[in-house]
């Protein structure tokens, strides 16, 4: 997100899901879409079936590769170099959109100063992608009118995450593939309401609608509306919270519906931090790994048991409607927060989520035109500033929020952790189709179908270890070890293995590296050096 | 192109039959099945034993399948004599008398082709014979007379003159115009005007176009296409090449069923030979015209003869028809405009181009021009392949050409058009054979299968037989065909087994009509024809099965009753000993009796009885 915010001035999917079927080229990079976003994956495959060309950049032979026109099997952690290579071809072959660069961007010279050092022949050495594929992909993307970029965590979950995103923005801008229908830079957001949580200001530096807490005018407006004093200093990000909890500065935490003790990197460190708190209150559906450290657990309601709204990856705000009554004594999370606030001397009076939404919309310009009444039907995409505004299908037509788009040359930096003799295999992590976070482990049907991890390893590794599909192995990183069953498959190339993060029985984040992107504070989940041992 | 002309002249001058006697054996599928290979071996052995200087070669089916193996003996300057039913035992005599002594063995000779030579006495002369007199051989003109594997013989007999003319003097539009003038209609069954079809494909937008030859001949008892492919593969290839030029295609497929290995082998040889001589492939005859031809072997599903199913099969998908429009002329193979004709249609093309559309149109009737190849099978004397002008009557075909019914039994019906055709009774024998007349009578032209039935044929059983076939071959896509054929077959089976009820006939008739009106493809729309036509012309047979529990033709086993005539029975006991079911009892020297409850109607007793005392009712 941070990368797009720097380049464009706003970080969100620029285009809409419904546009995918009209795309002629889809550059899919670091996204196993058919498993992580299956219904968008469907649309990509439908586009391919209709004749659109898919360029898939992924170290693994994911399902989309079967539908791809070009597959660029990239070494994890080398995206910046690859994108520089693509831009090298586009610039040297004169395939840039000169008019767009001139009118809509700044910094092209700066970009070229870096990119000129990345001819495909050199990039091939860094990324493992053959030079001719880099040429072909660059030409195809640059010369197709309706060409869109789609990415997810394979791009952002790196120490170079922000650089990766900024470089994709560079690529889109020099070819003029942004600010219009059917082209753009599209982060497919992983969680159902991660877009909404950001929009709502569940971030340490912004109020709802990305209004800076450091801005006195903004602060004044919120202080007036909320009738309180407001802190001018931006707060802490998750890794900082964890570190400061471990260091004894953070004394109490209130965690609603997250499980950092399973899903954050290097969970040994996370668990140490949680154990060090004076007080931890959890609000959740299940006793998660994190909840085991809690002093109080407050039972929340599932999405089926409450009303509200989610904002999807394409900025579409849609209604969530209550279908079941809350189980047992469970209560919708908004009611719990209200009750707690009242006990802390700040009564919050809301009869319904609709009232909360109305208050939020009155303070959030991009949501200002929305109301529950307007969300009936098929939802609205922000920005939607006035009650008459139809919502926004694609972003950045005519101008970027920051004015001109920022082109910035970015040098390739190797990932924080590299393989060596002791840890010769590169572990990369991600989602799989049948599970989502941890809740699906409690779904009887999904859980019975995929009850345990099946770490993907290449037949070469399997032969070395003497294991077959279904056998157990021990995976060891510089931070920890675990035992998991394996699936022997050529979906992963030799030297690379893949695990998901869904299983507490084989918690992959015991292995991962808590090295963070300096700007977005996203961890390098995608690159961990490990070795395999026979399970003892 | 000049080269081709010169080559042809050279070939024609050094007539392929030289100064030595030649022996030619019919080695098409029918010839081989009848023992042609053994005869060939015997001939080779005999010639070698005697140390004679004689050429031995093979040819294709001349049409007289009933007389295979056929051997042609030709002496220099003498008529070519065709012997039928040749066995290895007859070979020494044949060689001794005809080859060495120059005297044909008249009692074995079928026919002679005299050309400029003086005919032998006492052997029917082709084409003046009764068998050939009514025939007009166009697409079958080389069959049995030339070596189908020889491009030289094809060219020497006028082959590739048409392509030469087309590429040298005609525009694609002129070619299509010539085909339109000829009045040629699709020989695969539906009879769509070929020229019109070509013009649709030509006019369809698109750079890439295909021509496809439908050689998925699937009707039981039909072998027209096989005979032409085995006997004159070059004519089909030349016809397709001309079609490709006319519609603007550069690639073609012959979809041939895998059950025709010899046809596929000869096609492959022919394609290779034509390619080698610049008659196929890149830059044909130096004109810049390209045409690549492939063979696709089909797995034998009857429905793949339906053009959209055929295209699906070539594309590697399941052979299921799809709805038209769009027609293949608009969206065919891989979505490209595609012209599909069958073997006989393409084989006609070189002759039409060579002799002119007017020549072709001068044959046949007003709406059905030219000739048609038929396969005669069933209870006729001369089964085989014939080619006749359109408009000839059924009576002429069955009685004049094919010699009438075997054992001079009573004619009952002729089934035309394969399993989707109809059964026509005696009073339709004077019907002219053309598309419209046949359809009006409840049959169809089909691809040219003609099955003749005699008095011993049960028409209900015939309908059941064909429904059994179409039911098994239904692709399963549309409800009426998939479920309807199943239920029609069940009703027919019930009737044949004596379990029928009169209301079954109404149900059957309604169901057959609905299936005909609603099925998706030609297979489904025509599969009720055997039922509808037999119900129309032979309803009394159905009623006899239902009301009287009797099969008038004594075919339906469940309805047969074997009885012993006490007056004729001598009480010898042979029948009782032969009966596997122990159903016959009686004292020695006393008339025996058959217990109908035990009788399994196998007929063994009747065969064993020397006194004709047992009869079947």
């Amino acid at each position, binding site marked *: 997100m941070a990368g797009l915010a720097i380049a464009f001035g706003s970080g969100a999917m620029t285009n809409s899901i*419904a546009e995918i079927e009209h795309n002629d080229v889809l550059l899919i990079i670091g996204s196993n879409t058919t498993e992580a976003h299956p219904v968008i994956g469907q649309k990509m495959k439908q586009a391919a*079936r209709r004749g659109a060309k898919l360029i898939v950049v992924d170290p693994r032979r994911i399902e989309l590769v079967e539908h791809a026109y070009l597959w660029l099997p990239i070494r994890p952690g080398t995206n910046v170099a690859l994108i520089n290579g693509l831009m090298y071809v586009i610039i040297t072959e004169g395939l840039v959109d000169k008019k767009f660069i001139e009118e809509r961007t700044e910094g092209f010279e700066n970009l070229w100063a870096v990119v000129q050092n990345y001819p495909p022949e050199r990039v091939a050495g860094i990324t493992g992608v053959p030079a001719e594929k880099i040429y072909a992909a660059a030409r195809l993307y640059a010369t197709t009118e309706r060409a869109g970029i789609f990415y997810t965590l394979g791009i952002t979950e790196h120490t170079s995450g922000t650089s990766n995103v900024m470089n994709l923005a560079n690529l889109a801008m020099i070819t003029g593939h942004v600010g219009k229908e059917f082209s753009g830079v599209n982060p497919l957001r992983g969680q159902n309401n991660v877009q909404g949580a950001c929009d709502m200001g569940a971030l340490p530096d912004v109020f709802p609608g990305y209004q800076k807490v450091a801005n006195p005018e903004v602060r004044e407006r919120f202080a007036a509306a909320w009738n309180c004093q407001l802190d001018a200093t931006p707060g802490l990000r998750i890794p900082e919270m964890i570190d400061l909890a471990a260091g004894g500065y953070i004394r109490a935490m209130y965690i609603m519906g997250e499980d950092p003790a399973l899903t954050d990197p290097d969970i040994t460190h996370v668990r140490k931090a949680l154990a060090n708190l004076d007080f931890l209150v959890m609000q959740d559906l299940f006793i998660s790994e994190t909840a085991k450290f809690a*002093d109080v657990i407050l*039972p929340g309601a599932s999405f089926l048991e409450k009303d509200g709204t989610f904002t999807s990856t394409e900025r579409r705000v849609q209604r969530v409607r209550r279908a079941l009554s809350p189980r047992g004594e469970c209560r919708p999370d908004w009611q719990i927060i209200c009750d707690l606030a009242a006990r802390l001397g700040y009564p919050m009076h809301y009869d319904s989520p609709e009232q909360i939404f109305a208050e939020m919309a009155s303070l959030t310009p991009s949501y200002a035109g929305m109301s529950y009444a307007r969300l009936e039907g098929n939802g609205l995409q922000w920005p939607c500033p006035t009650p008459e505004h139809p919502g926004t299908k694609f972003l950045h037509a005519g101008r970027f929020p920051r004015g001109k788009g920022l082109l910035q040359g970015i040098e390739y930096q190797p990932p924080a952790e590299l393989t060596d003799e002791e840890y010769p295999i590169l572990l990369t992590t991600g989602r799989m189709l049948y599970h989502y*976070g941890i809740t699906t482990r409690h779904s009887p049907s999904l859980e019975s*179908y995929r009850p345990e991890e099946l770490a993907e390893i290449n037949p070469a590794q399997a032969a070395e270890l003497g294991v077959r599909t279904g056998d157990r192995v021990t995976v060891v990183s510089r931070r920890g070890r675990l035992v998991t069953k394996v699936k022997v498959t050529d979906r992963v190339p030799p030297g690379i293995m893949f695990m998901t993060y869904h299983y507490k029985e084989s918690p992959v984040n015991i292995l991962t590296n808590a090295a963070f992107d300096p700007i977005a504070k996203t961890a390098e989940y995608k690159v961990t050096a490990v070795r395999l041992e026979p399970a003892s | 192109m000049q080269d081709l002309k010169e080559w042809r002249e050279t070939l024609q001058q050094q007539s392929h039959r030289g100064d030595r006697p030649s022996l030619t054996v019919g080695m098409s599928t029918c010839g081989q099945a009848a023992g042609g290979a053994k005869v060939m071996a015997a001939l080779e052995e005999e010639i070698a034993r005697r140390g004679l200087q004689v050429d031995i070669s093979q040819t294709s089916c001349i049409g007289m399948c009933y007389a295979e193996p056929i051997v042609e003996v030709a002496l220099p300057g003498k008529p070519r004599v065709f012997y039928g039913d040749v066995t290895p035992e007859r070979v020494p005599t044949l060689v001794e008398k005809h080859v060495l002594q120059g005297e044909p063995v008249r009692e074995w000779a079928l026919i002679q082709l005299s050309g400029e030579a003086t005919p032998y006495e006492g052997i029917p002369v082709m084409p003046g014979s009764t068998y050939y007199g009514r025939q007009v051989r166009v697409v079958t003109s080389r069959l049995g007379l030339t070596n189908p594997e020889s491009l030289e013989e094809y060219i020497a007999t006028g082959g590739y003159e048409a392509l030469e003319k087309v590429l040298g003097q005609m525009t694609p539009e002129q070619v299509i115009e010539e085909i339109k003038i000829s009045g040629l209609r699709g020989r695969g069954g539906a009879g769509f005007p070929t020229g019109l079809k070509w013009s649709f494909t030509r006019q369809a937008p698109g750079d890439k176009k295909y021509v496809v030859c439908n050689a998925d001949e699937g009707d039981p008892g039909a072998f027209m296409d096989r005979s032409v492919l085995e006997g004159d593969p070059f004519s089909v290839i030349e016809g397709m090449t001309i079609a490709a030029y006319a519609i603007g295609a550069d690639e073609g497929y012959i979809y041939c069923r895998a059950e025709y290995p010899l046809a596929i082998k000869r096609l492959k040889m022919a394609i290779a030979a034509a390619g080698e001589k610049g008659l196929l492939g890149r830059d044909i005859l130096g004109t810049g015209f390209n045409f690549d031809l492939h063979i696709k072997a089909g797995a034998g599903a009857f429905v793949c003869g339906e053009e959209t199913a055929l295209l699906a099969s070539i594309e590697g998908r399941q052979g299921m028809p799809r709805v038209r429009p769009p027609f293949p002329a608009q969206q065919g193979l891989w979505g490209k405009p595609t012209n599909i004709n069958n073997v006989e249609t393409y084989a006609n093309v070189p002759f039409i181009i060579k002799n002119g559309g007017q020549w072709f149109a001068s044959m046949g009737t007003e709406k059905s021009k030219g000739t048609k190849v038929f396969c005669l099978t069933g209870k006729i004397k001369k089964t085989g392949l014939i080619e006749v002008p359109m408009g000839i009557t059924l009576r002429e075909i069955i009685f004049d050409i094919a010699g009438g019914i075997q054992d001079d039994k009573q004619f009952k019906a002729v089934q035309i058009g394969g399993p989707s055709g109809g059964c026509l009774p005696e009073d339709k024998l004077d019907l002219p054979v053309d598309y419209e007349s046949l359809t009006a009578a409840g049959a169809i032209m089909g691809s040219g299968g003609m099955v003749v039935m005699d008095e011993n044929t049960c028409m209900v059983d015939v309908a059941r037989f064909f429904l059994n076939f179409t*039911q098994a*071959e239904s692709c399963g896509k549309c409800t009426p065909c998939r479920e309807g054929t199943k239920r029609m077959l069940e009703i027919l089976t019930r009737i044949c087994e004596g379990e029928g009820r009169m209301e079954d006939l109404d149900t059957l008739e*309604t169901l057959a009509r609905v299936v005909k009106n609603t099925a998706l493809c030609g297979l489904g729309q025509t599969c009720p024809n055997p039922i509808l036509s037999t119900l129309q012309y032979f309803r009394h047979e159905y009623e006899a099965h239902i009301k009287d529990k009797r099969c008038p033709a004594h075919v339906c086993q469940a309805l047969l009753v074997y009885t012993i005539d006490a007056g004729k029975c001598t009480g010898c006991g042979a029948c009782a000993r032969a009966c596997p079911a122990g159903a016959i009892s009686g004292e020695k020297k006393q008339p025996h009796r058959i217990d109908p409850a035990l009788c399994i109607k196998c007929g063994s007793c009747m065969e064993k009885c020397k006194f004709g005392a047992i009869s079947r009712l």
Partner: protein
Amino acid sequence: MADVTLTIDGKRITVPAGTTVLQAARDNGIFIPTLCHDPKLTPWGGCRLCVVEIEGMRGLPASCVTTVAEGMVVQTASPQVVEARKMMLELLLANHPRDCLTCSKSGACSLQDYAYYYGVRGDKFHGEKHDYPLEDDNPFIVRDMNKCILCGKCIRVCAEVQVNNVIDFAHRGFNTRVTPAMDLTLRESEECVFCGNCVQVCPVGALAEKASLWQGREWELTKVRTTCTFCGVGCNLEVSVKDDHVVRVRGYDNPLVNSGWLCVKGRFGADFAESPDRITRPLIRVGERGEGRFREATWDEALDYTARRLQEIKEQYGSRAIAALSSARCTNEENYLMQKFMRAVIGTNNVDHCART
């Protein structure tokens, strides 16, 4: 595109060229039954239930694959058409189990509805019926091929929507069957991703959600439209509920998002909400931190205790010693309140959530 005027059942109708006769009729309120037709899938023309009579055309063309032409005269309910449709239904029923009494599809079954509409009892033919074993070796979908009417919608949805091509027709004629390659089950095929979109388009009871069997009849269900919780796509759901229990989940047709299609999680994963693992009362820790031992408490006790501890820590260490993780799983309203709570009530900007993308 130019308009075309035609007559259907005596009514003059003008529609855009290229429209099918079926569409033209339906757009004008004229009833034509279909089993294999779905406007979101390529036309198939297989069930032949939609046949109509068109002047000048041979036989009875299928209206779903016949495009309108200027001056066309169409009859959708002539005696010939009705006879054909009844016959088609008789044929389908002749090879269909008679277990409508307990069939999960009863009340939403197209075959049942049309048989009722045309008064077809399915007693015209008495012959062979299929007797295939039930396929229920996976936790999501039950396949009863005895009920399959071979409309092919599942095949098309798998090929055209999910683009997985797991199933197709196999065998011929009466023995035609929908199956993965080599007659394997969906599970054995290892190709099926259990998106269940085939179940959603099945017009009869051949495909059913396993977990919904015996849970509620069609007419007992309350349907609620909501948004899926399993990823950021925002697929619209139609949740069917009976007695405060989710009977099944299907895609709701929001043409801008999922057009009614779903994935395995969205369709089958909602059962997590009714898991016995759910915490249903507030809990207070009794064991060591991290041990995971708790006792149940009342809401008042839990909230009072929490408020007291937060207040104490705030007073002792300051607002900034408290931090909150909000949730990308919760609603906008809840996230808004959480950050408001931290900023306005606790007095710190220490609020973040796991926003990895």
